[in-house]
């Protein structure tokens, strides 16, 4: 059972055999034109964001852009869990904090480790932690799984308040109160990533790699197994899907991604603070992910923009960012009631409906049916 019932089975979920069959029947141009256009749009947008954007905005907005890109990895991981597998985690922000902790700890333990390797190691360790938290998912489903991740998140945030992020102190925890004022919990960036623009570009590339990883999974055997599990676990078992393996794999993948985001966050301009990862942020995260839409890869991008760009815009316009919390709350209820596929599906559909209605009125034929 998923939080949002998917209105239709997306092409990626259909067995590959069916897709191949369609491909054989259709002429090459028919099938390739929309795919090519879509790929071109994605590539153009990616190149614009990667190459042109740093030259157009100030350092402040570039840092916001960096944060948006980092959080798009987190929203992607939660969207995969909720939308593809039907597992709701309320502990993703705490896992992000774990990722940050691991990255900073590794940074102090092995200063010579190249940055990309450190990121991968952080992802792997966080992935192991996340899989451990996900173990109950094998036995508990739905509501109880969401609650256990919420409890784990609350416990992690209490532990974090006590242990702090490592700052080069002794022992396993690596925190020393004596160093607290002079050394911040921040991952040292290598020279080639020292400038804001180069770090921003690196983050965008890493985020793109994570999205590619997500797309690859959804289009492969893993994605089809997840779809089967989401729609009905007993049928998935009957169809020979290894439910244990693919549920744990989903948790491992989502935690790996979140860990990498944590490592990037540790290296970003602000560094890490223990009050930066409160339990309520996991709830806000779920809210924006549901609002953005969990069945499309554009959803997590929209969610990250809602989460990290919108508050800054509101502050810029002199509006209180608390309004957003209210908006996100209303958004969740609206998504639950009327738009299970999120904004990325709803807005284009409603706009198309509006256009059709206006055209109908102008033509004098009365209101037309909204286009589906």
């Amino acid at each position, binding site marked *: 059972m998923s*939080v949002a019932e998917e209105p239709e089975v997306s092409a990626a979920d259909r067995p590959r055999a069916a897709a191949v069959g369609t491909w054989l029947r259709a002429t090459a141009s028919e099938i390739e034109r929309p795919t090519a256009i879509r790929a071109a749009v994605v590539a153009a947008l990616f190149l614009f964001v990667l190459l042109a954007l740093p030259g157009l905005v100030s350092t402040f907005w570039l840092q916001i852009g960096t944060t948006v890109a980092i959080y798009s990895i987190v929203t992607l991981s939660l969207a995969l869990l909720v939308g593809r597998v039907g597992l709701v985690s309320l502990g993703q922000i705490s896992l992000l904090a774990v990722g940050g902790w691991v990255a900073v700890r590794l940074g102090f333990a092995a200063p010579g480790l190249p940055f990309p390797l450190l990121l991968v190691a952080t992802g792997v360790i966080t992935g192991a932690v996340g899989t451990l938290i996900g173990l109950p998912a094998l036995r508990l489903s739905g509501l109880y799984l*969401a609650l256990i991740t919420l409890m784990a998140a*609350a416990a992690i945030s209490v*532990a974090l308040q006590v242990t702090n992020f490592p700052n080069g102190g002794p022992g396993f925890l690596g925190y020393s109160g004596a160093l607290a004022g002079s050394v911040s919990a921040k991952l040292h960036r290598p020279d080639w990533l020292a400038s804001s623009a180069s770090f921003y570009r690196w983050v965008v590339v890493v985020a793109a790699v994570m999205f590619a990883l997500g797309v690859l999974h959804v289009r492969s055997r893993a994605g089809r197994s997840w779809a089967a599990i989401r729609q009905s676990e007993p049928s998935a078992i009957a169809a020979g899907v290894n439910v244990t393996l693919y549920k744990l794999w989903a948790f491992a993948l989502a935690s790996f991604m979140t860990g990498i985001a944590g490592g990037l966050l540790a290296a970003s301009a602000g560094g890490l603070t223990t009050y930066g990862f409160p339990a*309520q942020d996991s709830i806000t995260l779920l809210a924006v992910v549901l609002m953005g839409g969990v069945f499309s890869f554009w959803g997590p991008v929209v969610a990250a923009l809602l989460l990290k760009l919108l508050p800054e815009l509101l502050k810029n316009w002199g509006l209180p960012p608390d309004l957003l*919390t209210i908006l*996100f709350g209303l958004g969740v*209820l609206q998504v*639950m009631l009327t738009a299970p596929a999120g904004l990325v599906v709803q807005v284009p559909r409603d706009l198309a409906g509006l256009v059709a209605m206006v055209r109908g009125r102008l033509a004098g034929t009365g209101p037309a049916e909204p286009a589906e």
Partner: protein
Amino acid sequence: MPDFRPFLVLGLALGGVFALSGVGIVVLYRATGVLNLAYGAVGALGALISWSLINVVLLPDWEAYLVAVAFGGVVTLLYGTLFGPPLAQRDPLVKAVGTLGFTLILLGIMSWAWSYQAHSLILPTTQLGFEVGEVRVNGTQILGLGLGLVVTGVAAAFLRFTKLGVAMRSLANHREITATLGVPVRRVEAAAWLGAGLLAGATGLLLSTLVGLDIVGLTFLVIASLSAALIGRLESLVVTMIAGLAIGVVQACLTAFDSVGPYRTMTPFVFAIVALLWFGFAQGRLSRT
């Protein structure tokens, strides 16, 4: 061996309030199938409103407290009436996520109108106090424990012996069959929402005196109360009460140990995780009514 007696008093009072809110959560879940995660936020907003009524509008204290409790009932009933029926046929998870949306709305209102600055609300019962042995006990602590015990007893008797209570229990078993038997489902559910909301308002007042009037802190104390409710399997009021008291006492007594003292607020979460794992692995799946 440290002297546990002062911590025992603190723990029983806090545990009583955990039990009180745990009972509110269980009664609502049994009647409507909704796990109300906005419970803490409703209590916190009620406490803030009564703070403003006392310090800004200069209303008499007891009127302000009544308003807080009534506010809890009304706003929870409003949510239940608006969003309960459309979500009634959905998965329990969807209903719970809906209350998370409600939580965010309340949190946004609170941090916008009252900001994150510190407020304090001390119930007049705190001034009443007496010595038990060598330990000082104040009236609010007695009130917390007493309300926890009394409400558990009253709620259990209510579900067992009254017509409305029996209707709520049958709703918990099967919504459609209950409706077929002529039980006015919406009205019974509304009563459950109202009752749970009134309890949320009272809990908010007690906790803001016992723990402190902190928006985020109070909102997320619901997670601690939820632990008690989960140990009661969202079903047994008595187990919920005992679990609430146990969590409160263990958490308070851990203060006496320097090595684990700082981690004591993890107590409810650890209790809940262990309980969920045990239910999950030792006794098969939890039922999903």
